[in-house]
């Protein structure tokens, strides 16, 4: 997939000046977040497959009742050859999810003839379905296809595979999370606020983003303990400090303790600028987590109700 670099987190959701042009994939990501919040955890442990998820039905704008009826009709009349998910069965029925008949269909115009009349040359019998039933099957098939092609409608599987006890030990031990956080203080109720997948993204990268861990979510508003601060040391040794507004190689802007906006031109590193990011430890920790640490921590954090 065609993308650009992920430093560009949040590009859709920041002002154009923050450089939308490079930020293509993040556009997708931003959309993900909205979709993910609509998507329930399944955690069923069953083999996941493409199905007409509620998100896919909604996004495809098909009639949910027709899709529901079509799903049942397909299971009874078509699935034995085309498979329960319409992906086809080798030697029996072809994959319909990637079929042009489905991808191009509108209102059953393309799908009705083969379903009604069969395709005798291909060994497909007449379905015996009524025209109305065929339209329902067509609606369900279109959602199957739509769901396969639209990542925003995907459903997360079981994220809670970790060991909460080990997660707790990591929290208080190697992870040193308890240096800054408390399960009965700032993290109280954390597990109730997010789905496990959202929570996993959020604790890994808690930069005020949305639940998907997400690329593209809007930054948290208002002052917070994640606010970056900056100290500017002028040529005469005087220092100005405050909350960081923006910095690049040529300028640094901040709000000082009085709330006043201050702006300084930079030229080859002068004045000196020292930015403190309270969340830097989270970034540094990314280099150290094993996937087991990650899953254990998530399993622990969801218990903080």
């Amino acid at each position, binding site marked *: 997939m065609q993308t650009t670099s992920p430093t560009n987190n949040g590009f859709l959701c920041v002002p154009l000046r923050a450089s939308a042009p490079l930020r293509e994939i993040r556009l997708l990501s931003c959309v993900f977040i909205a979709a993910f919040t609509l998507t329930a955890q399944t955690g069923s442990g069953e083999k996941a497959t493409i199905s007409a998820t509620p998100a896919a039905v909604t996004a495809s704008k098909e009639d949910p009742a027709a899709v529901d009826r079509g799903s049942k009709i397909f299971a009874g009349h078509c699935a034995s050859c085309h498979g329960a998910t319409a992906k086809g069965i080798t030697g029996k029925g072809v994959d319909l999810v990637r079929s042009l008949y489905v991808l191009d269909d509108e209102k059953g115009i393309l799908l009705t003839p083969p379903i009604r009349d069969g395709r005798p040359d291909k060994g497909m019998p007449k379905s015996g379905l009524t025209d109305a039933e065929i339209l329902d099957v067509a609606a369900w098939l279109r959602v199957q296809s739509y769901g396969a092609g639209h990542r925003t409608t995907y459903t997360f*599987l079981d994220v809670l595979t970790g060991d909460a006890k080990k997660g707790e030990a990591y929290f208080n031990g190697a992870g040193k999370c308890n240096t800054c956080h408390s399960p009965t203080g700032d993290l109280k109720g954390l597990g109730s606020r997010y789905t496990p997948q959202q929570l996993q993204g959020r604790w890994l990268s808690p930069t005020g983003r949305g639940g998907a861990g997400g690329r593209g979510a809007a930054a948290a508003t208002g002052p917070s303990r994640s606010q970056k601060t900056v100290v500017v040391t002028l040529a005469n040794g005087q220092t100005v400090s405050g909350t960081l507004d923006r910095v690049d190689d040529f300028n640094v802007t901040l709000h000082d303790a009085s709330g006043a906006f201050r702006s300084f031109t930079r030229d080859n590193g002068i004045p000196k600028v020292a930015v403190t990011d309270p969340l830097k430890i989270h970034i540094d920790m990314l280099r150290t987590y094993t996937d087991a640490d990650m899953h254990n921590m998530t399993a622990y954090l969801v218990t903080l109700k």
Partner: protein
Amino acid sequence: MTFRHLTLALFATGLLCAQGLDRATLLKQPVDAWPTYNGDYSARRYSSLKEINSTNVHQLSLLWSTRFTAPPNTLPGAAPAGGRGGAPGAAPAVSIKATPLMVNGVLYFSSPNNAWAVDARTGREIWHYTYPPNTGSTIGNRGLGMYGNWLYMETPDSHLVSLDATTGKERWKVQIADPKLDYTSTAAPIVVGNHILAGIGGDHMDNPGFIQSLDPETGAVQWKWNTTPRAGEPGIETWPDEYASMHGTGQTWIPGSYDPELNLYYFGTGNPNPVMAEQSRKGDNLYTCTIVALNPDTGKMAWYYQPSPHDTHDWDATEAPVLIDGVIDGKPRKLLAQANRNGYFFVVDRTNGKHILTTPLIDTINWTKGLNANGQPIPDPAKYPKPDGALVSPASGGATNWPAPSFNPETGLFYVGVTRTWSVFYQTDTDDHPEGYGGVDSSAGGDGGSLLAIDYKTGKVAWKHDWPAGGGAAHMLSTAGKLLFTGNGSNIIAFDPANGKILWHSSLFGNPSAGPITYMLDGKQHLLVIAGDSFYTFVVNH
């Protein structure tokens, strides 16, 4: 000068008119034109111009700037952000990711569904062509190709349109891939000889990838090369079966480079499908995530090198294949270098694809078990996307991406923007027969970005510049004026390419969104910077 004679000769053949592009220009490294996506076939994005140079760059001044607008011309349901992943009906805006062409004082460029001709002296519009509304993805358009007086543009619904460069009138259009199968096209066509080399895109429905050569006069297909093999073809052994290969994708998103002496066209291919559910495509999955060398006359493959065998992280190998005429171990060599999205820098011999070196671009890579004897990263199955998530660096967007790097033959350094990022890769489809993406990834943060200057002989970083507030893949241009131009934080910045010292900058309304270009016009060197919907042209005032 033979131009006059050549022009007359071409008139006689009916191919070109005086306003058009002299085909011989494409075979040179021209200074008075920017006739193809990368400025010349080498993809070095290096200009021998030095009127603007390190001693006068501080005098670089704005000559003109222009903002371009276009009516909304996507249909409801169009996916602006990459095919079937996008937001239905999102408001279109002009976002220019095209590297403009500059031929005979006219700039030609595109955005999805739009093409423009603009007076390079003033920035004033000469014509604006709009393609009919369609539901194709408007993720981007990398630019136009030019042959004689004809321009070529790919469209979101996968047509190749030929325009009259003088008038902007449509000459013809041909479908190059079926948009209903989720093909969407963004590449800049590359003109080689009498071939229009047109890549395609779209990877949400496991559609097979290919590149085509089209007739510049008629749009007829001259040849088509599939990026994944069919039964009986070499490479099929890297797939479980033909069915998997046929649905293995490997799109040709980004234009490539060309060596006229070897008569080889080099380009990279995109990710295999299903993207993040690899269980149905065990094997290396040739020729996805691969650098390929094709004969442009026949469409036959000469060699390949695969930077990401069995990719599961969406790391297209479509970054610019940069041609370097260099020296390795005291011997002159024809080389090809690529800074790959997967986090590594590769150099191969472009005569035969033999591996020369692989070095990391970032220090956070965690998805490999090392390199094999051929310098290819060995993917660690533990870092394949998992239902409960696998924490991987780099993120799906990669250590770098499509914005073109630059190679400067004077410094021997390769300039590329990189970023150190992580993503949690979730597999969402564990079926034996997954389809589509089969997973998603969500960002887990990043540790900043840098501009790297890499010695092609060793793959080692000669100098780097860490951006104060992040940055990643960025558009590069270097010149014989001892300058390297790139963008960060909505600035266009000039560096000393030898040591990374900042020499000049100008603040823009947006970050550079396409490669800056340079050319002589009326005896004066111009620097053109593209940022979002606006162009800025700079010159040195005397």
